[in-house]
């Protein structure tokens, strides 16, 4: 769930990185998920160009790699904004105003879920429970969870950089 460490760098460098990561994980039983996580930790997302390299190293079809990436909500295939705001949409947060918070965030940022602000600052993602349900509503920004988030508090958090 961490942000990109190596979001920059050319296509060649990225391919080399993807290959290195895939080779590091291929011998582990069930190593494909850890490999995809590691790629996303480094690049911030799993780019389409990574699929053939991963498929080759793991000796499976590209369709299989793509199938795994697309099955899991938390793998992303486009670059994230500088910060990612995950809004909890689950019931305990609903009970404390998550729906209103959702509307507020969308209005303020001018984007919907799975989108990034045009200036590249913030990506907005839904999430289904952060385990912070006793201090709901909850949001996570990158990998830090905040509790009892009112629209005002959210605005303040988004001002920080």
């Amino acid at each position, binding site marked *: 769930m961490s942000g990109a460490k190596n979001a920059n760098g050319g296509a060649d460098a990225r391919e080399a990185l993807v290959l290195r990561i895939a080779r590091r994980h291929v011998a582990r039983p*069930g190593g494909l998920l850890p490999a995809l996580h590691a790629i996303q930790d480094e690049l911030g997302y799993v780019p389409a160009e990574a699929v053939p390299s991963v498929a080759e190293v793991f000796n499976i079809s590209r369709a299989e790699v793509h199938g795994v990436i697309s*099955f899991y909500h938390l793998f992303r295939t486009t670059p994230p904004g500088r910060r990612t705001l995950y809004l909890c949409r689950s019931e*305990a947060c*609903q*009970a404390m105003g998550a729906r209103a918070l959702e509307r507020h965030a969308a209005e303020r940022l001018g984007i919907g879920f799975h989108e990034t602000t045009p200036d590249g600052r913030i990506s907005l993602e839904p999430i*289904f429970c952060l385990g*912070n*349900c006793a*201090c709901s509503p*909850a949001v996570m920004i990158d990998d830090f969870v905040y509790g009892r988030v009112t629209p005002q508090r959210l605005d303040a958090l988004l001002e920080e950089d």
Partner: protein
Amino acid sequence: MAAEHRVFVPRDTTARSMGADGVAAAIAAEADRREESVTLVRNGSRGLYWLEPMIEVEAGGVRHAYGPVQTSDVPALFNADFLAAGRHALGLGPTEEIPWLARQSRLTFARVGVTDPLSLDEYRAHGGYQGLARVVELSRDEIVSIVTESGLRGRGGAAFPTGVKWRTVLNAEGTQKYVACNADEGDSGTFADRMVMESDPFVLIEGMTIAGLAVGATQGYVYLRAEYPLAIRIMNEAIGIAETAGLLGGNVMGSGQAFNLEVREAAGAYICGEETSMLESLEGKRGVIRFRPPLPAVKGLFGAPTIVNNVITLASVPIILAEGADYYRDYGTGRSRGTLTVQLAGNVKRGGLVEIGFGRTLRELLEDFGGGTATGRPIRAVQAGGPLGAYIHPSQFDTPLDYEAFEGIGGMIGHGGLVVFDDTVDMGEQARFAMEFCAIESCGKCTPCRIGAVRGVEVIGRILSGDDESGNLLLLRDLCDTMIAGSLCALGGMAPFPVISVLDHYPEDLRAR
């Protein structure tokens, strides 16, 4: 030189979400300024979440609590001499005497919030590794028998007897066996697994090690949800510490037996909490449900016999082995033995973790512990057992917390989460969300779930917008029946339960507006 003071500030996700890190920094800075000698311990949370950040000081060998503390309160706390348990408006008295905590039976959570989560010495000083010490002297058969006699049932949702599952794995043929801990904790309103992993990780490691030795499994995995970055970090650190101490690895506690443990990060699919989907995911695949049989206990991870248990199930095993099956079984009622870790969540005044013997009524939990709603309005509904659980109406609040009693009212205890709603809740929207969630999270293997849930969202939308209300209400009942009867797993098979509970108990909300 002033005396050394120990101050505890939780490093738990919820405590941090309410500002614990800032409070810890402020205490350190203020102590510096006043030249007080303070040792900060980042303990886990006691689970009195409405009081977070709740800090504690040790004075005269007794822990005293203050909370909820904000950074701005810190100078005043020093002025009030809180280091010597001085009086202050935020003072809560001796922690263990706070009624909310004193009325609980903390067995599985004995150390949670008490110790430094990553101190193996403290873990041992508070009874840790006594269960494993006993296990290395026992035969496999004896270990499994003790777990069976304790009456422990799975805390992940299905409440299957743990000893019976372990016996199946023990008897299954296979040179390689596995222990897979289900730490996907996807149900809204639940955080008990997270608390164990963040606040007392060694108890899960010990429980999994005991499971490994009990069935001859040498490898364990913790399938941990990606939404819990702090728990992932702490579990990994704790595993490293246990390896260094010879409590994991090739020769566990000098027993001559091997047990290795690895954390595997999930990737945000609710269905991967279902055990066969979790196994697919651990194998690096799409988390599509497997047909059963074969049971995972016979043919599980990579085709090998596998124990799949929830975090709380496994974390309850050490105390059962340390104190004996009777000790645990004496808590509880009927066929629900031992303690339940109830999680009070949502619109509740005093939310948090209540570990208590089975048998208390829902009302006791909601009123005596929960104190009603956070908003001060009447409770209108409680969702028990996660997103697939029915909404429970106040007329049913005298139901005891007991697996069978809950089943009797069409509900389920599941993982023990209680999500409270006040009278402003729109139950029509809650019904629609139940179907929407199922549609988002369906693994796609069977039609009643994959298509049915999407239809469910549409039909509820039509009812709410006044389009052939009575016809669509009948259609909705039909659709629920089809999903219940025709789905392969409990996602499609139970997602209709909250919808039906709205149809039955809150029909006034499922109509044209």
